[in-house]
């Protein structure tokens, strides 16, 4: 769709110049640091301090660390960690959707006068430090009298999660996969609900009325009108929620610390901050980013397509 291109010259130069400061900033402070990660992954280590010595020239890159870590990922101990991380994020995302979509939908369509209060309640945890909230869960899940632990055990939840493969059936919740997943969902779900709410809010109510007028049932309207219209919102919410989760390490540290729930973020943290092999941590970051690139590309394609068609 031509935008004023016939009537007067669209000042492309002006728009291009608008993007310069931001893009320049990102190149200087994002792309170059990202290159630094590669320079460390393929670089050396100070023999005295054990700190990273990046090699900026690709021709001098040393691939030993990369080979070691890569083989550990492909058929060593780190493979489990990657698989586990991806499955935790996947399950967490499904849960975020299962809980978040109804909440966002209700907020968008039905909340009426309570909308302001509800939205404030949904946003409130966003403002309390993530760590403080996790420590509150440590209190709630304490095997000796924590409310959540008592309630869950009374409901025989451990057996349920064991059957799903997400727990060990024990009454101690720390260290079980479902606990870490719950922690991830708890921490990141506001990032899911807010963009989804905004997208659902912009769905024109007249479409729904039209469907109703044409004789569709509530369920059919939802499946054929609302859900398809909310796909871009679901996608944006998913990406904004899931991608940070891949690098998360503190949820596992606070709620677990068990080797059975180790995530890739923990290994990255171990190598970068607590070892004299930071290049191993950098290699893990590169591998993780490469895997996420696939997801990122999908998101970028859909985003740009949607924006072009809206404009």
């Amino acid at each position: 769709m031509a935008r004023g291109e016939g009537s007067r010259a669209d000042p492309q130069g002006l728009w291009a110049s608008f993007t310069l400061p931001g893009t320049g900033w990102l190149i200087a402070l994002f792309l170059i640091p990202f290159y630094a990660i590669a320079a460390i992954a393929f670089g050396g280590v100070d023999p005295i301090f054990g700190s990273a010595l990046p090699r900026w020239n690709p021709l001098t890159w040393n691939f030993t660390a990369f080979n070691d870590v890569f083989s550990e990922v492909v058929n060593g101990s780190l493979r489990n960690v990657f698989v586990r991380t991806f499955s935790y994020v996947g399950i967490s995302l499904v849960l975020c959707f299962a809980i978040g979509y109804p909440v966002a939908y209700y907020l968008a369509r039905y909340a009426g006068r309570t909308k302001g209060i509800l939205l404030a309640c949904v946003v409130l945890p966003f403002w309390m430090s993530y760590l403080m909230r996790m420590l509150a869960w440590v209190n709630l899940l304490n095997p000796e009298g924590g409310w959540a632990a008592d309630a869950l055990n009374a409901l025989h939840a451990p057996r349920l999660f064991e059957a799903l493969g997400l727990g060990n059936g024990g009454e101690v919740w720390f260290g079980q996969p479902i606990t870490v997943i719950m922690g991830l969902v708890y921490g990141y779900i506001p990032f899911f609900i807010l963009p989804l709410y905004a997208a659902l809010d912009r769905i024109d109510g007249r479409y729904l009325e039209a469907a109703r007028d044409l004789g569709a049932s509530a369920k059919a309207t939802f499946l054929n009108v609302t859900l398809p219209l909310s796909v871009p919102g679901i996608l944006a919410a998913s990406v904004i929620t899931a991608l940070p989760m891949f690098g998360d390490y503190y949820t596992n540290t606070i709620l677990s610390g068990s080797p059975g729930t180790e995530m890739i973020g923990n290994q990255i943290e171990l190598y970068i901050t607590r070892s004299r092999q930071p290049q191993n941590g950098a290699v893990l970051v590169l591998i993780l980013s490469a895997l996420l690139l696939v997801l990122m590309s999908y998101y970028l394609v859909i985003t740009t397509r949607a924006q072009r068609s809206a404009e």
Partner: protein
Amino acid sequence: MANGISRRQFVERSARLAVLAGLSGSILSACGSSGDSGGGGGGSGDTIPLARLDNPVTLPDNGIEAVASGQEPESGTLRVLNYADYINPETQAAFEAEMGTTLEITVYDTEDKLLSNLRNDSLTFDLVMGATTLQLPKFVVGELIQPLNQEYLPNFSNVLATLQSPYYDVGSKYTAPYVVYTTGIAYRRDKIDDAAFASDDAWKLLWDPANKGFAGVLDDSREALTLGMYYRGVTDTNTGDPAILDAAEADIKALVAATDARFDILAWQQIPEGSSHIHQAWSGDMIAAQYYLPEGTDAEVLGYWKPSRTTVANDFFVIPARSERPVLAHALINYLLDPANAQFNFEFVGYQPALTSPTLDDLIAAELVPPHLQSTLVSDEDVANGFRLDALALDVENLWTDAYSRIRSG
């Protein structure tokens, strides 16, 4: 060079390193250390003096001068690098009042953070607390610390006899001890009977499946792997032998499989709260644990066991080379070497000061240590007999880190 030193400084520094290489007391060669670290741009080969109990090291002069004697303590803010909550806020306040100064504490939570803070030329710190033997060689060779001037430390005579001239710093040129501690097992006396800990090999209790879901191991590569070693009666805590490390790795993995053990340094919180019943821990943890008991739970439930010979460690003070208030820094060290102040500090920190006074009896009499937790106290004998976790050569340390990574990967 990336950190911007001039050509002249580079030449001088290389020359000094070569001299240090010649002077260093013990260069670990037997365990297959190599100079190549992936072709790093620093020195060529290990020139760090690696001290061991049976191989004491006199740290070399690193070219930094100690502060001159006879001066008044400087005024202004004393910038201290310390762990979180590792000094009693009231002790801090008392020192500030006495010296008319303010303490600004920058917290670090890993050695790496400490090291990067000290190496950062744009930052200046006046005193470091909580440094350990693992970092000491780097500090000296990296010219990050200055020698102490004992004239400012009259209370130094109060230090434990075994630590007056420790193996890692013969003559106490650079360090003054802060606290001393052992590694043992913290447990709930109401869940596990004291009698179970009667023998010296009670480490095996951590492997007991009866404690499934309630067991813990220290989140530290050295401590976790030495636990595996002690289980087998192996005591070479600074080994580079892959066979020993592999066996320890397998044993810890077995521990995890048997008990679903979790890795953290929170025994001081989990044991009193009841989310852990048996946890590899440091002696100071159970003293501190008294402050984390829930309402209605008595300190009687806290227990600590250590064998007759176990890992012993002490940390210490060092003064950064670029300290702007070295005399004031010495004053704080001296303040904390005083028996009364040390005892008061102990009330909050929970880790025993490495001093002859207050004596173990003093601490018990002051009711700072309940009778059933006497095992948390560290005696001169413990220090003399203990095993140490010392600095390792780069490739050896990497063996330990990789083993720990595999343990944690599940």
